[in-house]
């Protein structure tokens, strides 16, 4: 029963006992089991990409009224595997004048930065890498490594388009980190902890109920962090020919590709974990294996929204992107943090003063937070309507009548010499 309800802990204990039985020192056994756990977690993350690529391509196809991949495997589900084999066999091309070590380091960093998030992501009650007490900050911190990968790729490629892509990446990724960090503060205030698994444990009611504004800000700004459409101007094909990854070929390009898909899934998983209760659901406390199911179902549903946004929305211009960040998301996030802190304290104070039961206190808390969030949205968008409303582009010239070519003179009637043929 223990194996069925909680397989990972079971296997971990079995392995520990086995290694101890072989007479290894307990410290060494701890190191070995942790190394195996880290390896398995990282591999799970990477293998997941094989699945998310096909999920995304199928959806992409359906929405564009195509079938999507449909040749290999049932319904084309195995299409990624020949794609992988193809990319393994491609040639590595290092451009002339490239800075070798940063050039080769960049694709690795871009995957590492994402994979490191998985170390703190709780997949189920007992299935997580580690629950450090600064988990939320750690997520922000390892994001910097991915940025570094993009910048290194842009600079080391010795290509002007790549460098432009890197410049855009700095403008976008660094500035969207500000509202993201602020929005992450809200679940920290609500849960009273920074550990990610502790935050999931604190969500008796999903935090989306308490903080819909923060959830939205986190979702949008982490999309910008990934750099996919509508925020894909760091690799805009039509302007800068795929930007920072222009000079990469073969598996090195493949790593960027894997990094992007993994990142897109990871932000969905993070949103599910921080705002939608993560692995929580009926029976997940008693049977951790159920939590795994809930976690992946929630993440996949949010990932669906990520893909829909990618397909449906056109790319933002750079000024629109910066305006969205600095004029809308950042002030809104600042206001949401302050409001949440005040409302939380006031509600807790009154709940204690009136000696409310836990259900009544939760109801009061939820309605107060919801009301505050709705008010915030109304007031904020009332105030900034002028700045955020869609404006007609300035008129730079009056439309002129279409030039009509002068009527061509009627062709002279030419007497064809041949017409007089008998």
């Amino acid at each position, binding site marked *: 029963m223990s194996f069925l309800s909680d397989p990972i802990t079971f296997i971990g204990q079995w392995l520990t006992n086995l290694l101890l039985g072989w007479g290894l020192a307990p410290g060494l056994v701890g190191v070995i089991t942790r190394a195996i756990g880290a390896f398995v977690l990282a591999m799970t993350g990477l293998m997941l990409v094989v699945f998310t690529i096909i999920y995304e391509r199928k959806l992409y196809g359906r929405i564009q009224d195509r079938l999507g991949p449909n040749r290999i495997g049932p319904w084309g589900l195995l299409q990624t595997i020949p794609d992988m084999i193809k990319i393994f066999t491609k040639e590595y091309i290092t451009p002339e004048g490239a*800075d070798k070590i*940063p050039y080769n380091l960049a694709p690795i960093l871009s995957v590492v930065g994402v994979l490191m998030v998985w170390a703190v992501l709780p997949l189920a009650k007992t299935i997580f890498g580690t629950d450090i*007490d*600064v988990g939320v*900050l750690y997520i922000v911190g390892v994001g*910097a*490594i991915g940025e*570094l990968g993009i910048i290194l790729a842009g*600079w080391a490629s010795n290509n002007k388009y790549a460098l432009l892509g890197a410049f855009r990446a700095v403008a976008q990724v660094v500035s969207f980190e500000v509202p993201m960090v602020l929005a992450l503060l809200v679940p920290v205030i609500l849960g009273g902890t920074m550990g990610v698994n502790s935050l999931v444990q604190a969500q008796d009611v999903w935090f989306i109920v308490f903080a819909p504004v923060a959830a939205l800000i986190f979702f949008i700004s982490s999309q910008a962090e990934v750099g996919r459409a509508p925020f894909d101007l760091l690799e805009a094909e039509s302007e800068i020919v795929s930007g920072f990854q222009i000079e990469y070929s073969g598996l090195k390009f493949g790593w960027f590709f894997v990094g992007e898909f993994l990142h897109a899934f990871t932000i969905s998983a993070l949103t599910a974990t921080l705002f939608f209760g993560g692995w929580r659901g009926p029976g997940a406390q008693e049977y951790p294996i159920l939590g795994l199911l809930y976690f992946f179902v929630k993440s996949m549903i949010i990932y669906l929204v990520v893909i829909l946004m990618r397909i449906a929305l056109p790319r933002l211009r750079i000024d629109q992107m910066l305006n969205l960040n600095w004029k809308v998301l950042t002030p809104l996030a600042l206001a949401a943090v302050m409001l949440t802190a005040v409302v939380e304290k006031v509600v807790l104070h009154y709940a204690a003063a009136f000696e409310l039961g836990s259900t009544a206190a939760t109801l009061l808390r939820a309605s107060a937070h919801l009301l505050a969030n709705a008010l915030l949205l109304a007031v904020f968008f009332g105030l900034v309507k002028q700045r955020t409303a869609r404006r007609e582009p300035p008129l730079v010239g009056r439309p002129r009548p279409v030039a009509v070519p002068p009527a061509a003179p009627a062709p002279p009637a030419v007497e064809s010499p041949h017409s007089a043929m008998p």
Partner: protein
Amino acid sequence: MGPLQIIFLLAAALVLGAAILVVTTRNLVHAALWLIVALFGVAVLYVLLNASFFAVVQIVIYIGAIAILFIFAVMLTRRIGAKDIGPQNNPNWWLAALLALLMLGGLATIFLSWPAFNTPLPPLSNQVDLIAALGKSLVTTYLLPFELASVLLVAALIGAIFVSWERK
């Protein structure tokens, strides 16, 4: 020598080596990258001291913000390569070396005469919530320095806006 000490020695060697490379390498971007390696090493040292908050903040602020802006600024400058910069040292290098040595000597004397330098630290008890303790002490014991630092940062922000403000 336990595994922690081995990790400490490796991290310390990494920090020192990277720091030396920051000032000796001829390529400006490489210098910025070595600076990032050195800052990572410092983050490892924080982890070894059980200061997880500082380790993560070190990465978020120094690597995520400052070092990336460094690289950005360096990429916008000309003469990045090794060929087109002049001599690496200016004529006063011996003065800087002398000052650095004096500083090292002074610090070493102070630390060696400090009694806590030779006493092993008591292990941290696991019951203390370090982050909560840090947060509480920032708004109680160290309230004034904390707020002064905030005011300083706001002043810097306003100054930056003032400098870059385009008067119409």
